[in-house]
């Protein structure tokens, strides 16, 4: 069996699956249940200065799919609402009882060095393996000058990171907010401040839906609502891109990344790792299904690694990064054409109407005069290979995009004669 253990900027963990800083890691009771279930590590829910934060009711809302499956999840909770003393005591005990698991403590404080200097030794005294700086929380805390309010200003990120490195020997992971134009800027700033790693993404500003009778968004608090932080499966594509942006940025190419955002199964995790993550953090999937999901995640990842001949996580870490590039370096001579497997086709006509109405009129609807039966065929000379028909087809692998033999060599846009600004 493949070795799932990792060493993430000096933090050892029996597997790459950590629980992100969030309600599931708020107290010893939950964290112990998570470790019993097999999670490799936790990032303890963000600690702050006393008195502890106070939360409202209600707190969560969701964006649903067709079958009421949760596509995206939104919350307006703040950092821990328990005292620092209780949290530190519990962290100490849990780490003592579970020495092989990664214990990272999330922190959020105002931008005053003295406050950081005061708390860091206390955290270190718990025996924790590292700290994560919560520069990402997009709701509530930024109004008080913390969370995303820090993460959105690279200079602050660098400054606070530097304080932490100065006042603690623990590895420092800087958690980044996606509510920013270019995620590479705070990542570079974290690195400049001495960060051992970054983790991303934190949640995205969001309003999931409204009560149209009351004209108020969810979650409802009294007669009003506020924007929350969005996470869950729906944010995975955004998170993957941001991880890749940092992984392929020459300035941060060697900075370890803990991937977060919509990870719900082993395949999601493998994708984050292939795009540059050294560990992955999960929250929403556990909140929806319980801690037991880590079993299938570990099993699936391990079997896939065996199948592919990857002996360790490091064997495929960043393996997809070289294949992620700028648009201008894509091969202009590459061509795929849709192919419909008539045996698999259930004749729903979705590919036809999608292509006909919104794309390139490249699928013909043929109606048998005698039976009225419809068949759909690709008009090869019209097909630009956009993938839309394949995407809208409800039957897996009924429509495939077949690479064509063009006989032409690789040629990117910078070399293309149709580009008026080509290099050569």
């Amino acid at each position, binding site marked *: 069996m493949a070795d799932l253990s990792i060493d993430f900027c000096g933090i050892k963990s029996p597997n790459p699956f950590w629980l992100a800083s969030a309600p599931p890691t708020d107290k010893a009771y939950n964290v112990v249940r998570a470790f019993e279930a097999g999670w490799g590590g936790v990032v303890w829910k963000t600690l702050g200065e006393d008195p502890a934060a106070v939360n409202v009711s209600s707190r969560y809302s969701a964006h649903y799919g*067709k*079958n*009421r499956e949760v596509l995206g999840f939104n919350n307006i909770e703040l950092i821990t609402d328990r005292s620092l003393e209780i949290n530190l005591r519990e962290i100490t005990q849990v780490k003592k009882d579970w020495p092989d698991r990664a214990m990272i403590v999330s922190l959020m404080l105002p931008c005053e060095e003295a406050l950081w200097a005061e708390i860091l030794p206390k955290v270190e005294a718990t025996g924790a393996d590292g700290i994560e700086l919560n520069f990402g929380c997009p709701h509530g805390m930024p109004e008080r000058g913390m969370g995303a309010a820090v993460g959105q200003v690279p200079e602050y990120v660098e400054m606070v990171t530097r304080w932490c490195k100065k006042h603690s020997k623990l590895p420092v992971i800087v958690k980044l907010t996606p509510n920013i134009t270019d995620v590479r800027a705070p990542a570079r700033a974290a690195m400049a401040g001495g960060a051992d790693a970054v983790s991303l993404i934190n949640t995205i500003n969001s309003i999931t839906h409204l009560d149209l009778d009351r004209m108020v968004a969810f979650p409802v608090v009294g007669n009003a609502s506020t924007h929350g932080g969005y996470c869950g499966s729906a944010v995975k594509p955004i998170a993957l891109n941001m991880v890749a942006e940092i992984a392929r940025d020459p300035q941060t190419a060697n900075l370890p990344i803990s991937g977060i955002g919509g990870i719900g199964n082993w395949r999601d995790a493998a994708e984050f790792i292939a795009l540059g993550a050294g560990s992955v953090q999960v929250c929403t999937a556990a909140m929806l299904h319980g801690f037991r999901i880590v079993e299938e995640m570990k099993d699936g990842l391990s079997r896939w690694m065996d199948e592919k001949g990857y002996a360790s996580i490091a064997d495929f870490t960043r393996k997809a990064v070289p294949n992620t590039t700028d648009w201008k370096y894509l091969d202009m001579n590459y061509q795929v054409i849709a192919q419909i497997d008539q045996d*698999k086709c*259930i*004749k*729903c*006509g*979705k590919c*036809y*109407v999608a292509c006909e109405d919104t794309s390139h009129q490249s699928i013909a*609807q043929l109606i048998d005069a005698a039976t*009225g039966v*419809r068949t759909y065929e690709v008009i090869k000379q019209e097909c630009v290979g956009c993938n839309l028909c394949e995407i809208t087809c*409800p*039957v897996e692998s009924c429509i495939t995009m077949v690479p064509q033999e063009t006989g032409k060599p690789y040629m990117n846009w910078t070399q293309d004669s149709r580009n008026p600004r080509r290099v050569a």
Partner: protein
Amino acid sequence: MIDSLIHLPHAAPGDSARLEAQFTDLAPPLTARQAAIEAARCLYCYDAPCTRICPTEIDVASFIRNIHDQNINGAAVGILKQNILGGACSRVCPTEILCEDACVRNHDAEGQPVKIGLLQRHALDHASFAAHPFQRAASTGKVVAIVGAGPAGLSCAHRLAMLGNDVVIFEAREKSGGLNEYGIAKYKLPGDYAQREVEFLLSIGGIEVRHGRKLGENLTLAELHGQYDAVFLGLGLDASRSLGLTGEDAPGLLAAVDYIATLRQSDDLTRLPVPRRAIVIGAGNTAIDMAVQIKRLGAEDVTLVYRRGFESMTATHHEQDIAKANYVRMKTWAAPLEVLLDEAGRVRGMRFEETRMDNGRLIGTGAFIEIAADAVFKAIGQHMDGSSLSDELASQLQRQGDKIVVDQQFRTVLPGVYAGGDCVAPGQDLTVQAVQHGKLAAHAIHNDIQSKAGTAWPT
């Protein structure tokens, strides 16, 4: 109507509640959650095969999407604009050979079709309209006579009213609804659903129903021809075919449709005569309806006998399954030969000759079987009672077999006289098709009388 069974004991005296429970919805409605799950299974096909096969051309994908989007009234109007009796059709349509058979999710890889019939019912059961959802166009000043308040006539009347015409329906029976009221198995259209649907339909306004008026009895086509701008005949098929055997008039032998009508109109099921052993002859949905209902009323042994094999039955597989689930015995390859009578001249059973196919012809094998029974129900098809078309003008209608010949616009050979539903050829004798005939005929009538405005009755 069922005097022929007067000598038989009553169904379970004093156990009315248990009996009533046998005649509630055979297929329970979907819960809101089930409807949501089922609606989500619809792929929203383009040029969807379910819509193409629906005789009333309901945009199935659209109404299901509306259900999913919690626009129940929108879903209901989408159905009703194509099929004003969509509620009854959602319960009685053989969806297993129509929309649900055509559903792309029937494909081997997909497993099972979307439950379109139940979703249609869900939409119509849960829609709520402050007023009738369709408005009438400005009055044309025309008045159309319709004969028969069954699905074809009602559908025609509603559409004519919508287009701005006034309508008078002449109906022989006490209630409107036709087979929905008198002929469908009680567990498919339970309670007073048929009447409530008629009330809803009539609430558009402009439609008057005159009961107790029967063509050929107290009404003539010539009379209607003289007084109205057009006539639509939605006569249905009011007579049961006979077996052509001696003893056909014996007590204990009767038409299934007569028993079903009595059952549906009964306000006390315990007073219905029920045989201990029954034979039902036939292979259509009415035969199944009869066999299952008499079983549910308490008959111990019910045998459905058909002269050909299962594959030739017009009753769908779904219907055959209902019969099996109700422990109806089905005997195929046996043709009725003789009605067996007891000393008092009452039915005691039937004698059948076994049959087989011989070079494409059905022949007797020379082997015989007897099945004991206290009652025999004929369900071998309906035809038109010639007496309704016996007056001088009506007798000029062109007929094919017993059915009235119409063109694609549902025009008969008599100018100004239209016909649709089960009484015209060709037809599948389905409620949903009758609704479509009525709807299309209404448009044809409306266009014809509009273009002939001011001219005399064309003869």
